[in-house]
């Protein structure tokens, strides 16, 4: 399985997409599609031969801080450098200035069912390692646009939470790509982390397991099978992008930690890499949780989330754990992703960590190369009217690979400072 599909390099998008096409339509058509994609890419490349430079009032840096006076240089859809805005000089570059805005990496939603309708289970077996979330994505889902317009540029979808071992997560852009036959998913990671679930959904009285003990047994047995040559589980695990596990309670966390360590403890770091989808609710346990040194995916945190959960999330982050936010878009409005982060800050989380939790940390969890404004990353950028953590800030524009896909175009004249509309723009 260590083929190009698992490549996490920047070519992953094209390669993955090609593979996906091949699996469906066969090689000749896939070849054609690939050629078209490449053709479009090169066409786009010639069209934007010059560099685009984004100079916003503040730029959200990889460490989560907001810094002023940064020039983000984009070429061929990718960030090539971050410069000092005052010293920056490039007569060939098209400079877009947004003095009243905050330039942020696109937000990443880790818990979405965006572009996915209905349940994503294959049948009734608790162990379904062959499932691939990528196969469920529908680019025509109107909620993808809603997410995009609220700053979410990438979404991770998981296989169904009713499967104890449920296949691979997938991450794709909320803005669809263009294929030979129309819009198609713009995949960022088709072969994401292996999904394990101990959520309440795994218990089902019609086909089992019917108890938590039963589910725990299935999990341990399933993980054991990963060592059996030719078993279905061994096709998935050990996975070089690690595992992401849904936990409903602290007991589930304990079980998942123990069971995965038993199974993959001695293996290389990626195979034993684990992310927990778990929102803690006991502030007294967060120090211990943080010592496990696994990233946590929390949320959505809303206006009805109890204080103890909000305090626990903040405490977990402050105790040193890596925390990313998820939102269950579109079941939950996309703005609640930022609200989750804002409420965590209100309960004591460091603002920079909260911003990372929606961007760079979320990208690490999803195994993708966006989510931070740094040289080499894709220029999936969002222009907020203020700090993304301030809930009165809104999205004014979204750029995918440096191309504006949402937002009012800056006009050369007329637009003043008063309406909070675009500043600067085309030279």
């Amino acid at each position, binding site marked *: 399985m260590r083929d190009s599909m698992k490549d996490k390099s920047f070519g992953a998008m094209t390669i993955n997409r090609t593979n996906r096409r091949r699996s469906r339509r066969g090689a000749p058509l896939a070849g054609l599609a690939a050629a078209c994609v490449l053709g479009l890419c090169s066409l786009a490349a010639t069209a934007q031969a010059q560099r685009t430079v984004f100079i916003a009032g503040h730029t959200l840096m990889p460490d989560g801080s907001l810094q002023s006076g940064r020039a983000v240089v984009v070429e061929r859809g990718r960030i090539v450098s971050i410069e000092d805005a005052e010293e920056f000089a490039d007569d060939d570059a098209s400079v877009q200035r947004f003095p009243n805005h905050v330039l942020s990496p696109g937000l990443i939603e880790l818990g979405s069912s965006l572009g996915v309708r209905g349940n994503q289970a294959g049948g009734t077996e608790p162990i379904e390692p062959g499932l691939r979330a990528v196969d469920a994505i529908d680019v025509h889902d109107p909620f993808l646009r809603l997410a995009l317009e609220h700053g979410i540029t990438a979404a991770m979808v998981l296989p169904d939470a009713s499967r104890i071992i449920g296949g691979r997560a997938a991450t794709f852009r909320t803005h669809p790509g263009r294929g030979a036959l129309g819009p198609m998913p713009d995949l960022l990671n088709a072969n994401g982390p292996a999904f394990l679930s101990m959520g309440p959904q795994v218990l089902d009285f019609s086909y089992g397991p019917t108890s938590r003990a039963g589910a725990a047994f299935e999990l341990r047995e399933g993980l054991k099978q990963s060592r059996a040559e030719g078993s279905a589980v061994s096709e998935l695990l050990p996975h070089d992008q690690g595992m992401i596990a849904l936990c409903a309670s602290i007991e589930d966390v304990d079980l998942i930690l123990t069971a995965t360590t038993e199974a993959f403890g001695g293996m290389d770091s990626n195979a034993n890499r684990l992310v927990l989808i778990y929102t803690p609710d006991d502030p007294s346990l967060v120090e211990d949780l*943080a010592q496990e040194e696994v990233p946590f995916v929390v949320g959505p945190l809303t206006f009805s989330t109890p204080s103890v959960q909000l305090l626990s999330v903040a*405490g977990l982050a402050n105790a040193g754990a890596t925390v990313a936010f998820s939102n269950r878009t579109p*079941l939950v409005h996309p703005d609640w992703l930022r609200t989750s982060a804002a409420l965590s800050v209100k309960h004591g989380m460091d603002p920079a960590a909260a911003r990372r939790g929606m961007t760079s940390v979320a990208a690490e969890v999803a195994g993708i190369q966006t989510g931070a404004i740094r040289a080499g990353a894709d220029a999936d950028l969002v222009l907020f009217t203020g700090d993304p953590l301030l809930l009165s800030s809104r999205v004014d524009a979204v750029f995918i690979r440096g191309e504006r896909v949402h937002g009012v175009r800056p006009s050369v004249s007329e637009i003043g400072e008063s309406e909070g509309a675009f500043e600067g723009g085309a030279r």
Partner: protein
Amino acid sequence: MGRTTMNAGSGVGGCFVRNGSPVLWLLALLLVGLIMRPAQAQLFGGGGPGGGGPTLVIENARIITMVGPAIERGTIVMQGGRIIAMGTDVEVPRRAMRVNAEGKTVTPGLIDVSGGLGMDVEGQPGSGALRRAVDGFDPFNELAFDAALRNGVTALYVGPRSGNGFAGTGAVLRLARRDDGGRGVVLEERFDFVIDFTNGDALERVEAFEQARAMFRAALNYRDSIDEYEEKLEEYKEELKKFIEEYEKEQAEGEEEEPAPATQPRGRGGRQGQGGGGNEEEKGPEKPTRPDPSREYDLLLEVLDGELSVRIRADKDADILNALDLAERMGLKFTLEGGAESWLVASQLAEREFTVLLGPTIERVIRFDTNQPRRHSGAYSALRSAGVPVLIGSNGAASGSALATRFVLETAQLALQHEGENPGMRALRMVTVDAARYLGISMQAGTIRRGGVADLVVWSGDPTTGAAAVEQVYINGRPAFTAMRRGGRN
């Protein structure tokens, strides 16, 4: 009183204070001075404005006063529950407890114009014009107060729980300690009579509207019948007077002729005896019957006369139009609470110049149910551009979410996303000074000014430009909440 004024704090501090020995007092002060942990100041406990007590000083803070420009590196001196000095050049009294708020921002305590905090004990939703939120408010719901205070909310309108039709009358409270040890000092016992059109399906809401109309009509009929009664009573009095005069005349005449029995005129059970013959028994005029007194009708008449303001809860456009219709027919003025779909009927609302207390503008959960109100993130801006006066509240009572009050600032921020200039500051303004003005408590809340009540929030950063944590809340110049550091229990 001794217990309650002294013992709002707990534990060791409480013991010191109860003993009342001056030496222990000094010790306690010394302890506080040494540790400089403002939380410890809770041992001084309760006491309302003017209650004396220690002097507390917040220094080096950015102060957003809401009445002028922000003060950078300012000082606030609090004593006796009030702010006795404020500014950049303030002399700090000796022996004052000083809190260094370097890098922090201080704002007034937040205010929710449509909350339901502390109403958990009221039980099942129902209807009843005579219900009063102030009676249902639980002053010992510490969990609720903790949630509100740790998010910076210090005062609010508490509405009666949701119930179709007449829901009852709300109240305005500050979350200060009361003399009985609970929280919730009442500023206005009766504020806004609530008519609720947010429960059940569309037909049930229409029914509630019809019932409300019928009740108002019945109240007016009641008044008519009272008026009629009073008119008749006057007539009766006149007639009675005449009757007595005539009777006495007859008596006087009779006395001249023959002695008469010494009787009093009887007013009941007979026709008026104007044309009565000399030998017939005299009958007085008929006394009219007074309609049965009705507290409910009296209240509704107060509402119709504009003596008690009205707040109508409605989310769906059709219900809002019904509310406008009700107002038109009854000559009512009202404030619209909730108003999820008010943006759809903004022009109709603008015509009447009614204020909207807009609730949350984005869905918590996106549903595909036509009964679910269509919230819109641009609702505030749509209403404003139509000329409708708008404030933002948590809509906690109507939504049955008593704790929603804690995130009233965030609710306002989300609603103001499409406002151009400095929406963060406008959101704060809306839930402090504007909310206080609407609730008629500008003297007690909403601003930071010299001589004003010391209800303050100390934030880790500026809540108008980013997200910030609430580090401390002062009510009456005493710490009411102090955040613990680093993932601790609090």
